[in-house]
């Protein structure tokens, strides 16, 4: 991309908003429930389109019952307004988001904060046999000697597992 988009046209009231600036600003918005990752890390921003002042953002929910969705929408609107744009945030309720959309950086930030990142999606839906397999690594000690405690956890996106090696529970992101 060109390097002169910081320049303000003579007579214009404010600098033009660019898609790059919007993406950078969104990367500063923390997830309302797990603030170690940003909305960009989570992969919930499907598209940013800038047309003059108007900034259209497509946001996909993670889980449909997640109460963070409205907080995300408001945070996006505030960020765009701070950049001088007019926000138009559209929530897309199709199945385009999956846990595979979480970026590599996002997965590492989750792990460092003690949340085991989701395993990659397989061809078919997740099965109980898979959840009871040794594919899940403790985010604290790295052991795969872990077992499923509860399919459900403190939020819709998490399960609870127990690490046999360091003998403590941890939160495992569900794969969807």
């Amino acid at each position, binding site marked *: 991309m060109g390097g002169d988009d910081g320049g303000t046209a003579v007579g214009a009231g404010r600098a033009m908003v660019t898609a790059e600036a919007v993406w950078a600003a969104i990367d500063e918005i923390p997830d309302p429930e797990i603030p170690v990752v940003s909305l960009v890390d989570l992969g919930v921003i499907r598209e940013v389109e800038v047309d003059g002042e108007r900034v259209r953002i497509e946001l996909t929910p993670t889980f*449909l*019952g997640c109460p963070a969705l409205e907080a995300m929408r408001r945070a996006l609107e505030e960020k765009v307004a701070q950049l001088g744009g007019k926000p138009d945030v559209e929530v897309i309720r199709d199945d385009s988001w999956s846990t595979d959309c979480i970026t590599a950086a996002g997965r590492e930030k989750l792990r460092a904060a003690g949340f085991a990142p989701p395993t990659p999606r397989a061809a078919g839906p*997740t099965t*109980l046999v898979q959840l009871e397999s040794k594919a899940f690594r403790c985010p604290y000690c790295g052991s795969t000697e872990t077992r499923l405690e*509860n399919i459900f956890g403190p939020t819709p996106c998490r399960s609870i597992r127990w690490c046999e090696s360091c003998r403590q529970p941890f939160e495992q992101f569900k794969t969807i």
Partner: protein
Amino acid sequence: MSERARLLLTLADDELILGWRDSEWTGIAPTLEEDVAFSSIAQNEIGHARALYELAAGDLETDADSLAFDRPPGEYRCAPLVELRLVDDWAHTIARRYLYEEADRVRIEALKQSDDPQLAGLAAKIDREEVYHRMHAELWASRLRDEPRFAAAVEELWPYALGILEPAQRAELARRIGRPAEPAHAHKRGAHTPELEPLWAEMTEVRRSAPGAQW
């Protein structure tokens, strides 16, 4: 009302009312893990209801909250299965979860093939989450399989489960549950059980106390 709006309200009302019923176990389930599980499942079901109401609200030029809370109980389109208050009976509660998830799977799979991209997309998203509900239901159903109270509960709720689906989809449900041909007396949607009205009164009480308030 369009056929699509009617279908969306049917699905949304089932999910909202079942989510409400499942949430009645919060704090009193037989184990702490099930407290967490039922609360999370209820949250998901109500989340699905919200997304379905939002699609319907676009068609009907209203909003999701108005559809969820401002209709009189007689206008809800939910099936009798989800209305039943089963809160102190674990065998019946698990039988309902198991039968509902199987019936819901039949219609979600059909909706995923819909020519309407919004319906098909939302059905596919809901399906990803329901995978975990099915796992939970199947786990409990297999654990209780030899328990006479559970078998009796499945027997009793079977006609209600058939009532979740359109007649053409019922044979598929019977095949999955491993039951013989459908009984003639499916408890179909349309007529409500006496248990809906008290649930509705509680669910809408705060909203009705301050009509038009912004929360």
